[in-house]
């Protein structure tokens, strides 16, 4: 069927104002937040902007009828190409479904549409002294639907957990076009926790059209600590000791020297430029407890030999202490026009060793690499700086990235802590998973989407979704156990 027929059908469901199909309007959907080159930009056939679950279901049925794939999209801030329609098809943009439908104060939950912007939800419930705990650095722009699909995390996830720990249930439109509600409390109570499977499924299992999310009480007291150290080893040791002392801060972040320099040059955040590492600690909870823990952290940092120590309970000062960290990405922008943000995770005890490796590989490649990372949970964010106009720059970045990934995996790490696999890290999956592991994941995908119709080409390396592989295992087993077929 022609594109025209597809568009006409879509207009019947979403109205003319809810369908985009002309060149300029489609072009703006060919990319997300990922680096052009790491993810190939692709033009979708059509983009729809539905306003209800029923419209989403209607669109899914039409796409099915026309045999074109469907890709869900939130704010398009994803860093792994998740929202790019790499096989073309229809993009369902959920940005118009952006209402907070219900807030239950006693249960501390909110029922929201997927297009609600993460920070808007926290602002919405702020006067009830609640907030939505997952806080990706993109929280000003990224949507709850996108956070769910990528299982997003952020600095405060050390204490509060990542997105999956805050999703109690979801309404989804399935690849069949059916609408279902998944309740995570069913785990153990006679059902399967299908919500757990939806979180982190990168839009490949179902399109989230509503979510029941947990809200967290705003802590009574917050203390922010900045401790600078003369070596990365010292900073890492401080992290280890803080954790060993039996307290769980809300966040533990480290910046290395290059990041500090960049931040200071751009914003004068007051970080000591002669320090090798700056550690930011946030402690929250009962005021007396926060005071005690802060004192413990101070004693511990001084014993290790902090070269500068600052602490504050004042929100304005706290913002100033955080500023350097928050603006670090921006500051990099001033050092080089482009950056590639890596997302590997290693066991916490391997942090220093990994950073040495990062440093070594960075030097060898000749590309500057800055490090700003979630030290508390081992989530590294090496930032590779480059200028895409230089010939071969993107290729060199991707090469270095590959080496970094391999190094992290060798140290017991994994590919991604929060940004997802998408099409960008898809081909790295065999580094950490065996063929069996991946086949089992493909099986899970198939139980939601047997025809590979939602967001095809993501997460699973090529070939895994084709029928033959599935049968291979069956045949092997059949041979082994002496029967013809299952």
């Amino acid at each position, binding site marked *: 069927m022609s594109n025209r027929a597809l568009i006409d059908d879509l207009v019947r469901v979403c109205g003319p104002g809810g369908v985009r199909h002309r*060149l300029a309007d489609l*072009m703006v959907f060919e990319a*997300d*937040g990922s680096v052009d080159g790491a993810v190939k930009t692709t033009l979708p056939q059509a983009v729809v902007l539905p306003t209800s679950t029923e419209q989403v279901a209607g669109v899914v049925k039409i796409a099915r009828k026309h045999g074109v794939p469907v890709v869900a999209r939130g704010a398009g801030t994803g860093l792994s190409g998740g929202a790019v329609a790499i096989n073309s098809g229809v993009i369902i943009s959920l940005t118009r479904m952006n209402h907070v439908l219900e807030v239950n104060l006693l249960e501390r939950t909110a029922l929201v549409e997927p297009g609600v912007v993460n920070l808007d939800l926290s602002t919405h419930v702020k006067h009830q002294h609640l907030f939505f705990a997952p806080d990706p650095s993109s929280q000003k722009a990224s949507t709850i639907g996108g956070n769910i699909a990528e299982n997003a995390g952020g600095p405060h996830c050390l204490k509060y957990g990542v997105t999956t720990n805050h999703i109690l249930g979801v309404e989804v439109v399935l690849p069949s076009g059916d609408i279902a509600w998944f309740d995570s409390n069913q785990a153990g109570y006679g059902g399967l926790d299908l919500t757990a499977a939806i979180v982190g499924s990168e839009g490949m299992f179902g399109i989230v059209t509503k979510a029941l999310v947990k809200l967290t009480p705003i802590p009574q007291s917050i203390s922010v600590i900045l401790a600078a150290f003369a070596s990365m080893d010292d900073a890492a040791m401080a992290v280890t000791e803080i954790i060993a002392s039996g307290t769980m801060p809300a966040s533990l972040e480290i910046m290395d020297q290059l990041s500090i320099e960049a931040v200071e040059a751009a914003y004068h955040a007051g970080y000591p430029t002669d320090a090798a590492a700056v550690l930011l600690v946030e402690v929250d909870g009962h005021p007396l407890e926060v005071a005690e823990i802060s004192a413990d952290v101070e004693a511990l940092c001084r014993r290790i030999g902090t070269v500068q120590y600052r602490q504050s309970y004042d929100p304005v000062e706290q913002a100033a202490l955080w500023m350097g960290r928050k603006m670090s990405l921006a500051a990099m922008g001033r050092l080089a026009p482009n950056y590639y943000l890596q997302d590997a995770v290693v066991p916490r005890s391997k942090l220093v060793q990994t950073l040495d490796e990062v440093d070594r590989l960075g030097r060898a490649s000749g590309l500057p690499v800055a490090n700003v990372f979630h030290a508390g949970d081992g989530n590294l964010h090496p930032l590779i700086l480059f200028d895409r106009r230089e010939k071969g720059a993107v290729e060199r970045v991707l090469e270095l990235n590959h080496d970094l990934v391999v190094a992290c995996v060798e140290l017991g790490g994994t590919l991604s802590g929060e940004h997802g696999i998408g099409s960008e890290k898809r081909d790295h999956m065999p580094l950490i998973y065996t063929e069996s592991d991946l086949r089992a994941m493909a099986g899970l995908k198939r139980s939601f989407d047997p025809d590979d119709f939602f967001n095809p080409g993501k997460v699973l390396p090529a070939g895994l979704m084709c029928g033959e592989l599935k049968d291979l295992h069956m045949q092997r087993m059949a041979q082994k156990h002496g029967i013809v077929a299952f």
Partner: protein
Amino acid sequence: MATINLVEELQKPVPFSGPDMPDDELLRACVHCGMCLPSCPTYRETGDEASSPRGRLWMMSAVADGKLSLLDPDFDEQMYQCLNCRACEAVCPSGVQYGPLVEASRAQLEQHRPRPWWQQLLRQSVMSWPFDDVRRMRTGARGLRLYQQSGLSRLLQRTGVLKLMRLENLERMLPPIEESPLAPGKDTWVPKAKLANAHVFNGCVMSSVFPDVNRATGRVLAHNGYATDVPVGQGCCGAIYSHTGMLDDARVLARKNIEAFERAGDGAIVVNAAGCGSALKEYDHLLKDDPRYADRAKAFTARVLDVNELLDQQPLIPPTHAINARVTLQEPCHLVHAQRISAQPRSLLRQVPGLELVEMQESSLCCGSAGIYNITRPKMADALGDRKARNAMATGAEAVVTSNPGCQMQLRTSLIRNGSEQPVEHIVSILDEAYGGRTATGWAIDHQ
């Protein structure tokens, strides 16, 4: 074969060319992260990537790369749907300078695209004529005053002639005009103890529609130690031209203002219209390629201060009259985003005895005024105006405070449309009242 080439030639996207092309360096600074999306009023209203800063920049790059035609109607649409409110610029972590890029894109469109005759006519009559000379604007305003008083206005509103002429919005925006405008070169305000000189930028809309605000500015400045005057020879700031891609017209006005304020001698150039202020602060960029004026423009720009900025440089001389009221603040785009002035008005309001400031949601989201936007795109402007009115009304404040004439007019109409009685005041008028208004002492007015 030649014919085939011709067909291909015709189908090739029209690229940027000629003077005022969007600067490639600035364009490539966008890393497509999307952090600017939620601060953009048109994206907030539509939820459509095409109506977002990132989408618009992507389109500009597509034109620059020859993938999209400059004359693609959807490109044209987006370049003009943008309010040029600069909210995206203020939040962009990579420091993308969106303003100059959209203005250059518009300049390209103005150069290369044939406009339907009626649009040209409309733009010339509504836009160019009244603004390019303050005197003419004032004549216009006087005419308007007559028109408002004569009852003709009601007649026209009813017959719908205005709507036909797309002037209806202009009409709705205008407040009743009471005072006569300032006299440049004549009006001065002398403080008791002089701190420094200040030269008021008169502004077209401000001087014609809100002359009382300009007078209040003189009085408040004098209360705070500034010997204040209104230099002769100044004219329109030119924003209306640079925003719509008519950069050469803007340059003519810029040179004129630079000369006028050079003649006025030392001291700050004080602006109480945020839109004008941000335009004046960009003269250095506008004239950077003009060998005769580039340096003078830099010196000029360095002297320009918004009235909020100037007054908040040190604590106010304590106001004498309490104002027992709750007010809410609407932040003009060209103040908060283009000039990054946000803390100052709040600090000033806090120094007024009795006054309570209640913050509204989205106080820095564009109200839909944006120069002549509410005339050219009434639908989007109304949607944004309604949104703003709802947010202002939700605070329960007794008045809305802002500091830009365009915003004042847009807010007023929007509030009325939404059934609110909340008056809209310029921050200077509030301060003036806190010093006792027209009848206050402590400074002297001096008509030369």
